[in-house]
């Protein structure tokens, strides 16, 4: 769009403030918190006020997204800021997931930061900033916006990962995430540059129009470009072989941050990935679909198999999140076949999976957060969960529920999500993908139920030598998170129709 304007005269594009309202709400809240913090140095109410601000910002973002959803559904997509942002069902749906995940993260962290004596307001501001980037990512219609949003979401995350300065592991997570994240951003940027060179634009719809209208004589630059873009985005969604940071970072980061990363970051990453490839490069489907399929298979296999041998719960969940990325990629691969129906189902499946996964994983990490309070979040050994069902039956029951949901047991959201993905794969005649997927689910079931076994089937450890563990009540915020995640996972499992049609409405093709 910019390219068409007169180079001499810079025209300021019109801005539809409602369209970027959610970002403004989130960023605004973050800025207010930082301001508050810098004006009022001390006092317990600072944190409480920040918390209030943060929740307010997130809720406002959610309300705005709801309005957007209605508008988009009635009037179609909105292009704004010179076409760099495109508000459509897809973006709003994923944005809503991000906002929901953010809300849950904030609530989850509310007690955590106090417990671990972290800098509460800064923490909240960083989460909100990161969320701003994520929401921007979901509606980005320009590769540069994708890049910037990616950085906006990543940079606070680097800090968040390293947020617990007392723990070396947290700092290690931060530095690893940072170095590798920056590396992958650079690759992404170079990829964008190459795409730009090949097509003359960075606008996603612009690229699509260009490629639809012209046939490239020399495809090398473009192909190299979107390969590198794929690397950059694949890094964010933790697809194999760009996944290796995931276990370390997930394990080292403070657990609420891990929850946030595994849910919201993945949503944002997939938002960009799906939009870039489905909208910008549909003409090259045949070239990149095998790549996506290969990434899906690798993620499924490596994620599941590597998780089997883990003894750290967070690390195990990290590998499991890699495997989940594999399932979403299966849906993506299914979405990229020529068949319209199958493509729609593939997108729907991927979107729906992201929705369900966000709640399952936050729920699981929420339990981990609570369990880890004894060891100040420093250790999440399987042994710590031994006999949890006796000590804290509700907590153990919830974790078991989230794990079984992740394993894809019926009457949980996890099952419906997997069913959708496999259905999409089958409809797209990607039978091999479906079979790899179901078999990976079997392998994955092993480590999920192994944790369940440890909680339920084992005797509690001997009390001697251990400090008596008080059955502290779960803080209300955390309780709310647990209840919400469980309820949504369960409701989706029993009555999936209510949520499925949102996902269907959010696909590009309808």
């Amino acid at each position, binding site marked *: 769009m*910019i390219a068409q304007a007169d180079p001499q005269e810079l025209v300021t594009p019109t801005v539809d403030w409602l369209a970027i309202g959610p970002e403004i709400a989130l960023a605004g809240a973050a800025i207010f918190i930082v301001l508050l913090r810098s004006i009022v140095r001390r006092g317990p109410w600072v944190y409480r006020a920040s918390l209030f601000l943060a929740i307010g910002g997130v809720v406002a973002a959610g309300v705005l997204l709801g309005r957007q959803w209605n508008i988009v559904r009635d009037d179609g997509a909105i292009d704004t800021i010179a076409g760099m942002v495109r508000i459509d069902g897809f973006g709003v749906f994923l944005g809503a997931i991000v906002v929901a995940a953010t809300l849950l993260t904030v609530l989850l962290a509310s007690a955590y930061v106090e417990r671990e004596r972290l800098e509460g307001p800064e923490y909240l501001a960083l989460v909100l900033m990161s969320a701003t980037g994520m929401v921007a990512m979901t509606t980005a219609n320009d590769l540069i916006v994708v890049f910037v949003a990616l950085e906006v979401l990543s940079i606070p995350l680097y800090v968040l990962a390293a947020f617990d300065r007392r723990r070396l592991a947290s*700092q*290690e997570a931060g530095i690893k995430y*940072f*170095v590798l994240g920056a590396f992958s951003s*650079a690759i992404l940027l*170079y990829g964008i540059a190459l795409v730009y*060179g090949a097509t003359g634009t960075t606008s996603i719809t612009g690229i699509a129009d260009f490629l639809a209208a012209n046939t490239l004589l020399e495809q090398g630059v473009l192909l190299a470009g979107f390969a590198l873009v794929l690397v950059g985005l694949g890094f964010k969604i933790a697809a194999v072989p760009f996944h290796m940071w995931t276990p370390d970072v997930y394990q080292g980061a403070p657990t609420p941050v891990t929850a946030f990363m595994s849910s919201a970051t993945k949503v944002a990453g997939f938002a960009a990935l799906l939009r870039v490839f489905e909208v910008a490069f549909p003409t090259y489907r045949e070239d990149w679909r095998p790549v996506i399929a290969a990434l899906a298979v690798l993620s499924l296999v490596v994620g599941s198999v590597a998780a089997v041998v883990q003894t750290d719960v967070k690390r195990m969940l990290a590998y499991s999140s890699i495997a989940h990325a594999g399932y979403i990629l299966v849906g993506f691969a299914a979405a990229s076949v020529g068949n319209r129906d199958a493509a729609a189902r593939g997108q729907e499946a991927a979107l729906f999976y992201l929705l369900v996964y966000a709640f399952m994983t936050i729920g699981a990490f929420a339990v981990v957060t609570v369990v880890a309070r004894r060891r100040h979040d420093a250790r999440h050994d399987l042994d710590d969960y031994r006999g949890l069902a006796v000590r804290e039956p509700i907590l153990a029951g919830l974790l078991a529920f989230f794990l079984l949901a992740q394993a894809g047991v019926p009457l949980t959201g996890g099952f419906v999500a997997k069913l959708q993905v496999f259905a999409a794969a089958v409809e797209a005649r990607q039978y091999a993908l479906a079979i790899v997927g179901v078999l990976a689910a079997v392998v994955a079931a092993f480590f999920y139920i192994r944790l369940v076994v440890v909680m339920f089937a084992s005797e509690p450890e001997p009390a001697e030598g251990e400090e008596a563990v008080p059955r502290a009540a779960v803080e209300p915020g955390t309780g709310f998170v647990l209840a919400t995640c469980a309820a949504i996972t369960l409701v989706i499992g029993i009555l999936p129709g209510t949520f499925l049609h949102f996902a269907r409405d959010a696909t590009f093709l309808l």
Partner: protein
Amino acid sequence: MIAALELTANHYLVLAAVLFTIGAVGLLIRRNVLVMFMCVELMLNAANLTFVTFARELDDVGGQAIVFFTLVVAAAEVAVGLAIIVAIFRRRRGATADDVHLLKG
């Protein structure tokens, strides 16, 4: 001889690619976190160079504008990255990335 060497867009692009590769390889082989970080900066700048070259080639101001975005982002990254690195160095001496591998497996 020199006159014969006319600088074309391709030269810039190749230079950018070489820079990018140097950055990537540097990241792979250097152990000092700061150096690694500088390698990343090198890669970003290679990308910038590519953008500028293409923008010029395409006669499109948009590509040049992108560079500003990138620079801002890189600056932000530097700030955050250095902060983290400093935080780590406060706790332990030495600055090699290999020292931090509590997390593995």
